[in-house]
């Protein structure tokens, strides 16, 4: 039996460490209020701007999925349903809100009160509700960046301007919660890191074209997505993805793949069933079915098709990323095209 194929090289270790570091920073924020914590959505976000103020992101989505992987979400979901949430409401929201109210966290460590609830609304309307609820239950300030849905091929000039104006309005808000003055150079630096990480990540993704593919573009991509979202705009992120790329390139050079002989090369659409993550993965492993592309791994950003943040146009490129370069804010026809392209 050749199930459970995951590489356990440096990538795995480093990924774990980075995520632990993140939880530690969150715990520190919970204890001291520093660094300020900001609730943020994964998809099409403006983490670069937070980085410029040294604020730490809290991702309710990561909380929810971590609880699910650890089989800890039923209790908070039921608690949320007691509050009036419907059986059919997105379970991420219920797990997150229920966990907050019950004081549960995925790792058992403390999570901070957000200094700001920053809803980057890209496509999914549940985001709007979720963050309103987070703000209502925590009492924290809410700012919604309203990102126009991508209803035509490209965003309009008015769309870009609208998002840029909101991002600029956020600057004084972030100044007030962080106590730091905005430094354009630091923002550019964060954007530069993102651009570099995006480049490395894209190159990793393109390695899946090789047969055998050195990594699974669905399951392994999920492992890599943690650092991608938490550390994209930082030097740690750049270093992590440099190592990851190198390691995977070596695997290609040695002809090593997820499976010695891939039986199926598949494209995956949609998120995994997190409560059964392990079983689900094993099922694919049994069939030696390797994902060579996945839409889920483009929720954060669509960089594999060439888009990069631009330090020369920090606000505009962050806006473009939010508007057009993540799968969530793209319309059904565009998402369909994306799958065809794979």
């Amino acid at each position: 039996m050749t199930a459970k194929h995951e590489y356990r090289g440096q990538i795995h270790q480093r990924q774990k460490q980075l995520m632990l570091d993140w939880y530690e920073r969150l715990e520190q924020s919970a204890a001291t209020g520093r660094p300020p914590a900001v609730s943020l959505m994964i998809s099409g976000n403006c983490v670069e701007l937070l980085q410029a103020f040294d604020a730490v992101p809290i991702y309710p989505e990561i909380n929810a999925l971590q609880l699910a992987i650890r089989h800890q979400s039923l209790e908070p979901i039921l608690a949320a349903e007691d509050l009036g949430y419907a059986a059919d409401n997105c379970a991420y929201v219920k797990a997150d809100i229920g966990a907050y109210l019950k004081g549960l966290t995925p790792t058992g460590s403390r999570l901070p009160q957000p200094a700001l609830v920053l809803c980057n609304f890209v496509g999914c309307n549940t985001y709007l509700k979720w963050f309103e609820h987070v703000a209502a239950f925590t009492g924290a300030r809410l700012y919604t960046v309203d990102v126009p849905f991508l209803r035509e091929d490209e965003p309009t000039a008015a769309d870009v301007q609208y998002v840029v104006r909101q991002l600029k309005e956020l600057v004084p808000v972030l100044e007030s919660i962080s106590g730091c003055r905005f430094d354009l150079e630091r923002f550019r630096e964060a954007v530069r890191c993102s651009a570099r990480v995006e480049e490395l990540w894209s190159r990793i993704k393109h390695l899946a074209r090789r047969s055998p593919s050195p990594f699974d573009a669905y399951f392994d991509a999920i492992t890599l997505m943690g650092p991608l979202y938490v550390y994209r705009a930082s030097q740690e992120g750049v270093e992590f993805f440099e190592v990851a790329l190198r390691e995977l390139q070596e695997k290609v050079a040695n002809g090593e793949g997820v499976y010695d002989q891939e039986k199926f090369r598949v494209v995956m659409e949609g998120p995994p069933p997190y409560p059964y993550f392990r079983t689900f993965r094993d099922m694919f492993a049994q069939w030696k079915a390797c994902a060579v592309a996945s839409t889920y791994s483009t929720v954060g950003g669509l960089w594999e098709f060439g888009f990069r943040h631009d330090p020369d146009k920090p606000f505009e490129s962050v806006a473009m990323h939010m508007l057009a370069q993540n799968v969530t804010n793209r319309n059904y026809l565009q998402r369909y095209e994306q799958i065809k392209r794979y």
Partner: protein
Amino acid sequence: METTIERTFDKCEELIADLEFTAVRQWKAEHPGARAIAYFPVYAPAEIIYACGMLPVGLTGAGDQLDIQHADARFGSFICSIVKTTMELGLTGRLDPFDGFLFSSICDSARNLCFVLKRSLPGRYIDFLHLPHNSATPATADFLTSEYRRLIASLIQLNGGGFSEDRLRESIALYNQNRALLRQLSRLRAEQPHLLRASELYLLLRAGNLLPVETHTELLRQVLAGLPARSAKPRDSLRVMVEGAFCEQPPRELIRLMEEAGCYIVDDDFVLGRRWFSDDVPTDGDPVAALAESYVSRAVYSSVRHDPARPRTAGLVEKVRRAQAGAVIFLIAKFCEPAYFDYVLFKRELEGLGIPHLLLEFEEKTFTFDRVRTEVETFVESLMFV
């Protein structure tokens, strides 16, 4: 003997039951070359469509009269009725009188319906308006003004012209009149709910989705004039406000049933898009900007519009107080995410204030009338006879 008012209600009932959109076909026959544009709820700037010489028509699903045969294959099972029936209407050719469709950013289901429909009806003009969800910044009105200008440009292209700012001002004035009458009727209903019942006002609102605005305004005037002469007697009822049916519309039977079970529905959010503004949209200055600005600062609260500066919980409580309602009935379409999410915060707020509420669910095809009747009766009894 049936009075003029009752005849009007009957006519409205016929109109809204007609899934072939005969009234729209007729209007088109009387206006050769003119187009009709259907918009999906909740709100659309009908003024703009009308100013282009087109007939704006508000879609409201298919009630209980349509069997879903094709739409189920295109959506998951956890999708509200109106999304499915709208798709089914489209796939069965019933939406053929429409030259275009407008959708907006109200919820995930409606958003995706727009693009699924686009795929199913290739070549048809189908547009998606991004109605903003951040009203706390001056950037919003500017953005929405551009969004409306984009819409105007597309409609002009579809129509070969026909738009002018003056025509838009006139159109806004016509809709202002219409909304003012609806506000008047709503007020009267809250003051004398025996004279105009919610189940009747509902018919008038629904008819407004299908008729040209002037025709509808005339109809409202007639009803308003005829109301004082009605021979209805006040009865002992619980004053309730209904919340949650802003998009998909409940069967009229259900509203009547609530009335029969002992409720005066003194305010509600049925067909909310027809009553979107709390006062008149200005008719001076740039009319496109005026409409956009009104969306930001004059719109009523709604579960599909997000305005951090004015929480919807506050809107709800204010509405309850204004209508002097003693309780709230949440009447929510099955699988309606915006309504169900809001229910959580609404419930919390009402409980904090000691305002009783009841949660009911409906579908376009509701089969649980008896159960609902019992629930409402029990609710009313528990509050009226203690």
